[in-house]
């Protein structure tokens, strides 16, 4: 099969789930360990377990929506459930959220590069490079980005696995246990950080029209697998970071996993794996930026009934680039913005609104005619 014709094939659920896992890697490595340590202290590594419930409920919502409206994307489903005017109204809010989220990802990427590898380089340079790469990817098909995450996820998981094996003898159990029952409410509260990132699985619904009509139960099972792998990844990374760096230090570092990996060697022969951690984060951020960019373009297309998206790429890139500087600049500002704005907006747009849509779907389900 020729490469060109392969890229034009519909998207598979497997690719979408792998994309979800790939874009989740960078917040899981960068933000979640320190956020959990700040809010729940030493018991923070229990929080991913609590986050399992909302993430699985969201997965069930996605499966219900795809089952009820096969071949339709989020906008089309919302139009079916609420009507065109209300659907567009919801999409305006999704557009604002997507742009803010995108600027947040760009800031996080630039700041982590500054923190890890190039402290003297200005963040605007990193953002410019990312925007140029994203523009290049956007002129190709969206399938390119999904394929990229599909290819890259395996080696990334293998790398994390090797790191975990190398780190096993350095894990300090006194950093992890005992966990006091008094801290459990804090772990529950801190789990919103994991939940907010886990909600990214809902982004798949923006591309659900590309799955086609023949979605079987076997295909849908991949959503559950993806959600469970996400929780497992969170648990492993948090235990890993807490067990080596300790919760107090984790709470005060902008990128604790990077510092943790600094102390790991492969049988006392190879070291300096932290550069690879930065690389993994950059790749994950790149895919996240491209996916959020595509979502922004999709929403603009849906709002104005535009068929092509190519001519929107440069103007949207320009708006996003300058907005990134207006949203946050320094690490402190970004941490504040992430904690107070992005996490809460993610909970609203990735959990509360989908719950509302699911509620409408359940109400109207018996009226949905078997039209597919």
């Amino acid at each position, binding site marked *: 099969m020729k490469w060109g014709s392969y890229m034009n094939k519909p998207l598979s659920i497997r690719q979408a789930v792998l994309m979800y896992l790939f874009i989740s890697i960078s917040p899981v490595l960068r933000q979640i360990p320190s956020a959990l340590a700040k809010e729940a202290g030493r018991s923070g590594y229990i929080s991913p377990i609590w986050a399992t419930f909302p993430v699985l409920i969201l997965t069930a919502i996605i499966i219900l929506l795809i089952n009820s409206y096969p071949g339709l994307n989020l906008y089309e489903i919302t139009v079916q459930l609420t009507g065109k005017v209300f659907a567009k109204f919801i999409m305006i809010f999704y557009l604002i959220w997507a742009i803010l989220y995108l600027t947040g990802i760009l800031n996080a990427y630039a700041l982590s590069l500054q923190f890890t590898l190039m402290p003297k380089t200005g963040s605007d340079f990193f953002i410019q490079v990312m925007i140029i790469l994203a523009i290049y990817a956007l002129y190709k098909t969206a399938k390119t980005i999904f394929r990229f995450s599909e290819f890259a996820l395996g080696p990334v998981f293998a790398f994390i696995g090797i790191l975990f094996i190398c780190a096993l003898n350095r894990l300090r159990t006194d950093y992890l246990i005992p966990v006091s029952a008094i801290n459990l409410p804090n772990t529950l509260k801190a789990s919103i950080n994991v939940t907010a990132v886990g909600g990214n699985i809902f982004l798949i619904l923006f591309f659900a029209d590309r799955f086609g009509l023949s979605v079987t139960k076997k295909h849908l099972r991949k959503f559950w697998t993806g959600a469970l792998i996400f929780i497992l990844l969170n648990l492993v990374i948090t235990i890993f970071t807490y067990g080596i760096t300790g919760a107090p230090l984790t709470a005060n570092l902008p990128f604790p996993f990077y510092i943790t990996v600094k102390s790991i060697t492969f049988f006392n022969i190879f070291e300096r794996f932290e550069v690879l951690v930065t690389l993994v984060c950059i790749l994950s951020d790149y895919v996240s930026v491209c996916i959020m960019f595509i979502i922004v373009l999709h929403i603009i297309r849906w709002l104005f009934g535009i068929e092509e998206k190519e001519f929107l790429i*440069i103007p949207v890139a320009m708006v996003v680039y300058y907005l990134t500087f207006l949203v946050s600049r320094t690490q402190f500002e970004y941490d504040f913005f992430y904690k107070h704005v992005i996490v809460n907006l993610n909970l609203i747009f990735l959990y509360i609104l989908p719950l509302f849509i699911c509620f409408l779907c359940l109400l109207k389900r018996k009226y949905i005619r078997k039209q597919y």
Partner: protein
Amino acid sequence: MIFVFGVLLVISFMREKDKILNKKVNFLVFLFLSFIGIMLGIIHQIYPYVPSMASVLEKYIK
């Protein structure tokens, strides 16, 4: 960077001229987004250290 984006906008317009001018809405959306982008670019050029949204929010929340 505003000049680079300006050139890219012109190139994009020339390349996608048919699609942009095909429908009025395409042209208006392109114009609207370009206008917002250019305005944000000018603000960034004139006031490069304008207080960010995060710092403004921080003042009100704390």
